[in-house]
């Protein structure tokens, strides 16, 4: 017997018990990243003086370096020079790294979506006397959300899978749990297969939500 199915079946509940931590990390990081990404995108679109340049550098760095390197910098690197970082645990470091990394990517997607909104929408808002902020919040961002939604959900899916890197910071999430189980039983194939299947199931469930959401966001555009 190459694959021990009985062992696998027994492993599912063990690994699944760490799914809440995985999902919590991904959800919290996604929520903060989304808010941050919208802010970054708006700063870039409105070309806010000074901030615009800083945001460009921020995005460039977090898109230009591997997530794993960023996590190591936060968790192992910074505490060596900034003592305040020493108190940070693996989960917090992972969530912070995921947040900043994905915010940079998502900001660019949102910026693209905003720039894709027809000029007539800006002019209509301006013509009735809306401020830039009112226009953004009420007209442009809701329309950009529809354009960006599929991409952003893809990032969320990517984010969920990327939480597995937290295991390299000593966090026992699903991947960490599987590693520990496998180290005891030497059944690496089964353990990692179980993790793979659980990730796959979570992502499939999300894809279902994604399709539902796109229908809802497209409501105003149905003929």
């Amino acid at each position: 017997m190459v694959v021990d199915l009985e062992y696998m079946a027994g492993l599912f509940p063990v690994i699944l018990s760490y799914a809440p931590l995985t999902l919590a990390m991904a959800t919290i990081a996604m929520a903060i990243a989304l808010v941050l990404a919208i802010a970054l995108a708006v700063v870039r679109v409105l070309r806010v003086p000074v901030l615009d340049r800083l945001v460009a550098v921020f995005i460039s760095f977090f898109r230009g370096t591997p997530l794993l390197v960023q996590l190591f910098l936060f968790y192992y690197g910074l505490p060596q020079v900034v003592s305040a970082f020493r108190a940070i645990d693996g989960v917090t470091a992972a969530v912070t790294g995921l947040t900043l990394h994905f915010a940079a990517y998502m900001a660019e997607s949102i910026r693209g979506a905003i720039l894709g909104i027809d000029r007539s929408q800006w002019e209509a808002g301006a013509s009735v006397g809306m401020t830039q902020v009112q226009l953004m919040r009420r007209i442009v961002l809701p329309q950009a959300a529809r354009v960006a939604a599929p991409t952003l959900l893809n990032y969320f899916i990517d984010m969920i899978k990327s939480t597995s890197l937290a295991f390299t910071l000593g966090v026992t999430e699903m991947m960490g749990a599987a590693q520990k189980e496998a180290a005891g039983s030497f059944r690496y194939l089964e353990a990692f297969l179980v993790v793979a299947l659980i990730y796959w199931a979570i992502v499939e469930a999300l894809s279902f939500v994604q399709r539902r959401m796109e229908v809802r966001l497209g409501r105003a555009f149905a003929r």
Partner: protein
Amino acid sequence: MIRIEGLTKRFGARTVLDGIDLEIAPGERIVVIGPSGTGKSTLLRCLNFLDRPDAGRIVLGDLVVDAARATRRQILALRRRTAFVFQNYALFANRTARQNITEALTVVKRLPQAEADARADATLAEIGLADRGDAYPAALSGGQQQRVGIGRAMALDAELMLVDEPTSALDPEWVGEVLELLGRVAAHRQTMLIVTHEMQFAREIADRVLFMDGGRIVEQGPPEALFETPRDPRLQAFLRRVA
């Protein structure tokens, strides 16, 4: 009284508005005609700072805006006292017909929602779309969309309504209903500046017609005078072409 002095706009090396002077009396309905590319739409867009004029002054009651030094606050004030009807309707795509009308009322004029809704319903009835208030723009015909665009402008109670080629993007079958509605708006003595190629419409509703060419007002006067006894050769040639 609305006064425009020396309004100038350049796109690169090209002068599109070459020092426009114009006074508009309250309730006056002015139609702007002229060949394409002579600055008619740019004049309207500059009056609302959709295009930023390079020089000149716009005086709207107690509001004096110096184009070269206009502040963000002044531009907002100017836009809040004027209304704009776009060639391509420019309805808010994520808002229903009713919301297109209430949006500026609640967000900009800070009316309570109920009051804004009441005004929107009255406006929807006036533009003949009482039963389409919950429809999104994508579900409306071109003519219906433009009527909502006009309704949105009407509901603002603006001191000046700027109407930019309201029927140019429409299929011929919808032109009539839009002109009919604009005629009714004009009948209420709404102060307006309309750019159009519909000469018959201009004759019917205008107190004064401006003929623009090369970024200047070449000739102006009551419609009978302008259409029956044009003096400038460029106006004569233009009228022969569009007749």
